[in-house]
């Protein structure tokens, strides 16, 4: 059997997705027997020119992690789409924007200021911001411009499959790769998941009728390790999150944060989680309901921690303020339905 050509790329990401590939461990050796790695900037020294020189469709499979935040990300997304037979949005950033997508709440300028000047660990006495162009005696240096909003990969190019997770669980990655190699890919476009939601794999006891008067955050209480977090007044995204991770966080006594995205047939994870949470309110008057609502700190960051960039809320916002977006010309908006 001839080997396949495999590529992996990181756009706007933290590097965790590449670690998830490294975490394949000895499976990497098995992989090396059936695949040639033709591009993987996180691990080996390739240049963009190497990819540009490839024939269209030369790459059999590309695992693309990271969101589209800069012109460069968008450019490489197009390039890799052109060169790849199968393009996979790998991990939460590429699939739904993930944590970096929360910067869409404030926009790129504010995010740049925060990152370059305001964070406590930054020492930047002159308050200089990254410049798109900078003149040096040797010539002009340039940085890619930021997109007006952070995009998911699918907003920029067509995607064949998605593997959710921040990062994807390496066992699931291996299963997905095996399915690909065996030519046994599912008809739906989600790979590396289990049926249903995290609650399905969660060992915690659900009494089932307990409602709550206030919500607390994980650092404010020591949670009972046996009981459902929601019934203890801790927001747990498990009910609105696709199974696949094996309920890792809940088993470590930490509520599910929702990184595997919504279950099949649910378009908007945040809306689903919001409704699930309100259902557990123990309020018998307007005032009580308001009090409970007030205990939910940062609802948007809680419900859309990973999926804001891919949410209806984001799309609604875009209608009235797309603005000047260097990536927008490349962004193909999906027809989204529920």
């Amino acid at each position: 059997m001839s080997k396949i050509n495999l590529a992996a790329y990181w756009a706007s990401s933290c590097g965790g997705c590449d670690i998830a590939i490294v975490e394949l461990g000895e499976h990497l050796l098995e992989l090396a027997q059936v695949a040639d790695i033709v591009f993987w900037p996180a691990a080996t020294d390739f240049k963009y020119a190497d990819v540009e020189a490839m024939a269209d469709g030369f790459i059999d499979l590309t695992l693309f992690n990271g969101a589209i935040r800069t012109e460069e990300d968008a450019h490489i997304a197009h390039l890799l789409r052109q060169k790849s037979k199968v393009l996979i949005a790998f991990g939460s950033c590429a699939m739904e924007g993930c944590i970096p997508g929360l910067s869409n709440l404030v926009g790129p300028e504010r995010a740049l200021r925060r990152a370059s000047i305001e964070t406590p660990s930054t020492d930047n006495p002159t308050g200089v911001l990254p410049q798109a162009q900078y003149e040096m005696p040797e010539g002009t240096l340039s940085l890619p411009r930021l997109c007006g909003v952070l995009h998911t990969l699918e907003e920029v190019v067509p995607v064949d499959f998605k593997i959710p997770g921040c990062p994807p669980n390496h066992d699931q990655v291996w299963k997905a790769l095996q399915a690909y190699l065996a030519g046994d890919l599912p008809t739906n476009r989600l790979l590396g998941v289990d049926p249903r939601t995290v609650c399905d794999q969660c060992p915690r006891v659900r009494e089932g009728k307990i409602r709550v008067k206030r919500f607390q955050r994980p650092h404010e209480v020591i949670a009972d390790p046996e009981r459902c977090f929601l019934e203890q007044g801790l927001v747990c995204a498990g009910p609105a999150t696709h199974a696949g991770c094996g309920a890792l966080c809940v088993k470590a006594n930490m509520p599910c944060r929702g990184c595997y995205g919504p279950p099949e047939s649910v378009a908007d994870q945040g809306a689903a989680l919001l409704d699930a949470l309100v259902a557990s309110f123990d309020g018998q008057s307007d005032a009580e309901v308001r009090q409970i609502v007030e205990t939910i700190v940062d609802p948007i960051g809680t419900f859309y921690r990973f999926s804001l960039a891919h949410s209806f809320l984001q799309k609604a916002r875009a209608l009235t303020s797309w603005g000047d977006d260097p990536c927008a010309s490349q962004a193909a908006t999906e027809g989204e339905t529920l």
Partner: protein
Amino acid sequence: MIRPEQMDRRFVEEILAEPGGEHLLTCWSCGTCAATCLVRRFNPAFNPRLILHKAGLGLREAVLSSAEIWACSACDACYPRCPQGIHISDVMRAIRNLAIRAGYEAPGPAAQVDAATCSGCAVCTRACPYAAIERKPQMVNGQERTIAWVDRNLCQACGICVAACPSGAMSLEAMNDAELLTRVAAGGWLEQPGFLQGASDAPRLLAFVCQWSIRAEEEWERLQGLNDEHLRVVILPCSGRVEPAHVLLALSKGVDGVLVMGCHEGECHYQRGTYLGRGKVALLNEMMAAVGLAPQRVRFAESSALERRAFERQVAALREAIAALRPAEISEVRG
């Protein structure tokens, strides 16, 4: 025509002995309950006075086999008005318990669980105002899993669980997600650009209206007649059935405002539905503000069956609030 042999004194005693049934015989048959009852608007055959009367006469078969004993939703609108202080929903429950023991079942509709999709998260068991849902071990495709099970004798078809279920595993006949969405989008209504985008001459509003918060038959007919390019009215069993995803989808398609209309505090037909509706809208408003969308565009409004033209007033108020937003949002588009 009631014949003496149909009258069963033991039936009366059984009801009296059942918790909640104690006050059966204090009924004067004045009919105040029937005059107050909201269920009658959709189910004219339901008459609490008549049921109590027949039960008091001991007409066992006639009472236990009737579909009407299941129709009371325990909203308790009649309770404060009954001159004898009878807690009628309790008596109804006592009668239903006897019916269940005699092998009768509620005619439905009732919420339904898709066993293969349900993950047993227990969101719905907490949501249901009637404690009609339990988690039970069940065999699904050869595997034992603990998933939701609806007691159709307790379900009142409010749809709150359908909204709450984060997996899309719960459904309810005409009130499931796909059906509601069809009604929202019918005729391409969702696909037209809105006023805040500078594309419509007046705000386009979507209204989710609780079926109990509106006055009477004629008012309903009038509401349907209000549907046009600028207004889409979708009736819900309860404001607690409103789906945040539908509200956000509408905004993402360019609908300018969404009105969720429910009952006044303490008047919910399904006990807690209105509080859930309010909670959802409050959180939506907070998130909209955070993302830079004017929260005024989504509003929870109250009404009751006693108010005239409350709906039109609320629609007008929302239109006005949105019209006032336009300069700001339009300049953002240009800027």
